[in-house]
Structures are given as structure tokens and as C-alpha cells.
């Protein structure tokens, strides 16, 4: 036990030591950006003293084996960017929403079934990436759609079947990614997200698009709309084959509005 340095040769231990060295160095030079990518970390306990580095603004822990994010993450009060991509996280602590400066949260490729209670209280969140998890609409807390600061929402590769009409409350939203879910219907309220300029809905079971989409700025060269791999209704599929601009022009027409209303009469 006393001959500690010898254990450096042990493979797992060498990675651990590297993580510790990163922390020590960060403490010495007060480095606000912490990179701990692919360090074989399986728990925050392997990062002693991390939570005392209150000056940290970015913490990147991608490609590790972390299962639990402790509530003490909230002590990193200056954290703006937290990247936990490709770990084994099953749930997020409520404390994460008390990080007042957190702007970018990437928890893509984890095992999340739910975002945890009160998640929507995050006061500054601008970019949220929850791609490739096990989320469905039941896993979103009641206040999820109240995050008015959100400008990009990545929810691809999950188990969503519905998107709440409350989507329309995300007034700053510029990017919405809901590809590869089981979504049947995009709510008309999407028309309230007036700044939307990227919409990725590939690989769902969408037949119709709400006419309100036409009022958004999605048909220009500065926008992205992705609809592939959906069982689109024939009139939409025909226009889509001609290009996004044609599609959006068609959706604007009264003919389409009538078609859409007829198709959704039973729904409303």
C-alpha cells in the first residue's frame, strides 16, 4: 500500500491517475475547462475534489461508464457546459436544474428513461441533447416545456410517440430534432416557435404536417427540414419529392388546409 507509485503500471489505474492529474492541474492553474473524456470513470467518487473547483465553466465526461450523477454537481455554480455523452446514466438529479448558469447540457447516448422532477426549472438552458436514450413523453417532467431560453432540443433516437402541444411555449427554439422516434403527429402549436430554422423528423410515423409549419422560415437556403422515412400522405410525399420549398408552398394553400382538417376531424 505504501509503494503507491508502482501501481501506475496497472492499466485501469493508469487511467485513474490521469484523471486525478487533470484535476490537480486544473486546481493549480485554475483551468475553467475540464476534459475527462474516455478515462474509464465509473463514478464521480473517482474524481476527488472535483466539486470544490467552483471556477469550472465546462465539464466534459464523454465516453465513460458513469451511472449516477450526484446532487453535489450543484456546487459547481459556474458550470455553463456539461457533456456526459456516452455514459450509463439512468437518471438525473433534481439538483441539475439549480445550476443557474448551465447553458449546454449533453446527456446523449445514456440510459435515461426520465429527466427527473423539476428539470424544466433550469433557468439558463439553451441547448439540450438527450439523443439516444430511452425517453418517452412520460419521462418529461410537467415543467419541461417552460424552458423559454431553449434554442436547440435534440431528442432523436428515443421512444417518444407524442409531442406535447406545449412545444409552442419554446419561443426561442431554433432547432428541433425528433428523428427516429415513433411520433405520429406534430402539434399545430409548432407554429408558435417562430424562430425555428432546423426541423429533423426523419424516421417517425408522420403522415401529415400541420399547416402552421408553412408560416415558419423553413424553406429557405438558411434552414433545414428533414422528413425522410415517414409514411407521408401522398399529396405531401409528392411535394416533398420536389423539394422543401415546394412542400412548404403547398402546405400554405387552402386546398391543403382543407385536406389536413378533414384528416384530423376525428382527432379534434
Amino acid at each position, binding site marked *: 500500500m505504501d509503494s503507491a507509485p508502482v501501481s501506475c503500471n496497472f492499466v485501469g489505474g493508469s487511467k485513474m491517475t490521469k484523471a486525478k492529474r487533470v484535476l490537480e492541474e486544473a486546481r493549480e492553474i485554475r483551468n475553467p475547462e475540464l*476534459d475527462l473524456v474516455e478515462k474509464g470513470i465509473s463514478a464521480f467518487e473517482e474524481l476527488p475534489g472535483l466539486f470544490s473547483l467552483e471556477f469550472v465553466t465546462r465539464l*466534459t465526461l464523454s465516453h465513460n461508464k458513469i451511472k449516477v450523477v450526484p446532487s453535489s454537481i450543484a456546487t459547481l455554480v459556474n458550470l455553463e457546459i456539461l457533456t456526459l455523452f456516452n455514459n450509463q446514466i439512468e437518471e438525473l438529479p433534481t439538483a441539475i436544474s439549480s445550476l443557474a448558469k448551465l447553458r*449546454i447540457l449533453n446527456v446523449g447516448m445514456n440510459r435515461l428513461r426520465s429527466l427527473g422532477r423539476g428539470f424544466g426549472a433550469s433557468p439558463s438552458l439553451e441547448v439540450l441533447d438527450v439523443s439516444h436514450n430511452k425517453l418517452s413523453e412520460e419521462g418529461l417532467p410537467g415543467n419541461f416545456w417552460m424552458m423559454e431560453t431553449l434554442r436547440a432540443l435534440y431528442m432523436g433516437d428515443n421512444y417518444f410517440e407524442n409531442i406535447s402541444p406545449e412545444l409552442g411555449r419554446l419561443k426561442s427554439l431554433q432547432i428541433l430534432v425528433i428523428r427516429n422516434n415513433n411520433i405520429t403527429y406534430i402539434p399545430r402549436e409548432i407554429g408558435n416557435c417562430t424562430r425555428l430554422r432546423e426541423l429533423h423528423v426523419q424516421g417517425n410515423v408522420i403522415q401529415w404536417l400541420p399547416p402552421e409549419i408553412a408560416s415558419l422560415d423553413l424553406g429557405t437556403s438558411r434552414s433545414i427540414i428533414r422528413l425522410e422515412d415517414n409514411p407521408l400522405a401522398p399529396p405531401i410525399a409528392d411535394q416533398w419529392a420536389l423539394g*422543401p420549398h415546394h412542400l412548404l408552398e403547398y402546405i400554405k394553400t387552402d386546398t391543403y388546409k382543407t385536406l389536413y382538417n378533414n384528416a384530423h376531424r376525428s382527432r379534434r
Partner: protein
Amino acid sequence: MERQLSLHIEESSLFSRRKKSYTTRHEDQWENINLALGTMLCSRCGEGFEEQEKIVNSNGELWHPQCFVCAQCFRPFPDGTFYEFDGRKYCEHDFHVLFAPCCGRCGEFIIGRVIKAMNASWHPKCFQCNMCSKELADLGFIKNQGRALCHDCNAKVKAAGLGKYVCHKCHGVIDDKPLRFRGEVYHPYHFNCSACGIELNSDAREVKSRPGYAANDMNQLYCLRCHDKMGIPICGACRRPIEERVVTALGKHWHVEHFVCAKCEKPFLGHRHYEKKGLAYCETHYHQLFGNLCFICNQVIIGDVVTALNKAWCEHHFACSVCDQRLSPKSKFYEFDSKPVCKKCYEKFPVELRKRLKKMHEQAAQKAISSPTPNP
């Protein structure tokens, strides 16, 4: 509807106010009228007078002191002042209560000249034009929608109702375009150009100052021709001459307050502006509209910009979206939900996901070739 009425002001002769000195005859005067006593009777009760009794003499009529009282309250007249109406005498208070008209404006009793108009009575001073408060008693008035107006105000109201102005000089309705000058409106033909002397039309321009004129010189009128020759800059927004500070931008002149952001319409007031396709924008809206906010810091990009995947980054913020490691603008990266992913991270993605992403990428590329987006 307005009704034109002829002047109808009554001069009231309702009563005359009197203060007559009545004489009380005392003992020492008694003998002089001794012989007449038998023939004298009180005007009220018709009885004669006792010897040594006081007699009130008013206007040749005689009274017992106790009979010389107000016909309404039977009390003596204060200060001996009484009002006579229909042969009866009243104290001031009762006379007012019974017979005197009240003013429709101030509510006080009217003594003297009474103006009867608009179904009410008025003191001459209180009967005024509803708009300009001019006294109307001697000018006459016009009834307009329940208001009494003087002739001038009535003409104004009438003109306004027709959407027209009244000339400030001749008070006539202006049928054509009015000429605005020193805050009033006029028929243009009342004026001549200050430079060439030609009779003006509504195109004439009012000029506050021009080179060589002192700041407190009065405004002058010029015909359009002379005005154009004076070289006063015209605002590119409101098309009116600029007489204060001139902003020159986008090849035009502007009033300071009219040079505004094409998006939020707030004046720049000397702040930096950005030009795009002949329009000017404030810093925030230029970047919001033309996309130069960094995807990471959401701030206006100062310095080198990396543009890719429909987004922009500060050069030092351009990084792999999975591991946050910086990417050089030249380095190869993969696209994942229109975000950049470095090769190392991409190779860690499950095989199934990589296959799908590859397929999606091909579809999008195909789409881009088969249907180019129209570029307005």
C-alpha cells in the same frame, strides 16, 4: 344635426329693483299733517292711522309700519330694500326664490340683463362659446349638437366634420390641400414665395433655417422650385426636408430619428449599424437575421467565423459536439443531427447508428442534388 338659430336674446324687464327711502313721521311733524290724517288710509289693511302712530310713506302710498312687510314672509324688509312685482312688495330673498332666473352656468341669481338662450337663462358674462369661451351676448351664436358656438368655432367644427381645415387668415373652409405655416393652416394663395414672389400652392415648403440665417429667424415659405434650389437634404424615410442633424448612410440622407434598424425600427442614434442588401440593421438583428451568432456562446462572433452545417461558430468554439475537443476549420468531421462529430467519437458510435447516419447522409445529399432550393 346643427340648427342655425337667429340671435334670440331677451332683454328682461321682469322687475325693477328699488330702494326707496320711506319716511317715518314723528311727533314733531305731526301738526303739519294733522288735518290730512282723517283722509289717510293704510295701503295694505285699509284702516286709518292713530294719532302719534308711525306712518310709512313709500312712493306716495302710506302704510302702518307693521303692514309694510314682505308679501311672502310678512317680515320687514332688511335695510328697507324691497322688490316689487305685480303690485306686491317682496324682500330680496323671497323675490329671488319666487321670480328671479338662475344662470345656466354659475347657478347664481341673475340681476340686470338676462340672456335667454339654449332653453336657459344666463348672465351675459356666463353665456360663452363652448369652444373658445368668447362672450356671445352681443355676437350671436349657432347651436351645434347641443352646444352654443361662436361663428368661427362653428365653421371650424363644420370643416373638421367634412375632413377639411379652416384657413387661419380668412376663416374660410379650405377645399384643396392646406398650407401649413408656423403651426397653422392656410389657403396657400394668401402667401407668396419668399424668394421669387410667386403665389404659392400647397407644394410650398416651410423652411426654419438655412445657411446664412440666424437660428431665431422666423420660418419662411418658399415655392417648391426655390426650395429645391436651396439644397436642403431630404430624409430617405419620411421624404421631408432635414433641418436638424443629418445622417448620411446607404447613399441617402436621414433625420437622426428616422435612420432605424430595418428589423426592430429603433433609431441607431450614432450606434454602429450593419448594411445588407441596401438595408441597415442594428448589431443584434443583423446577426440574428444573417446567422453570425456562435452556436456555442450565442454571442455575436468577433474575429474569424467558422460556418458549417447551417450554423456559425467563433473559431475557438468550433468543437466536436460529443467530446468538446476543438476542431480545426480544416479537420475532417462527421455530421450528426447537423452538429459536427470528430472521427474518434464517431467511431465509438454503435455500428447500427453509424449505418443509419450514413444512409440519412446519402438521402440528404441526393435530395440536395435533385431539388436545389430556390435562392431568392
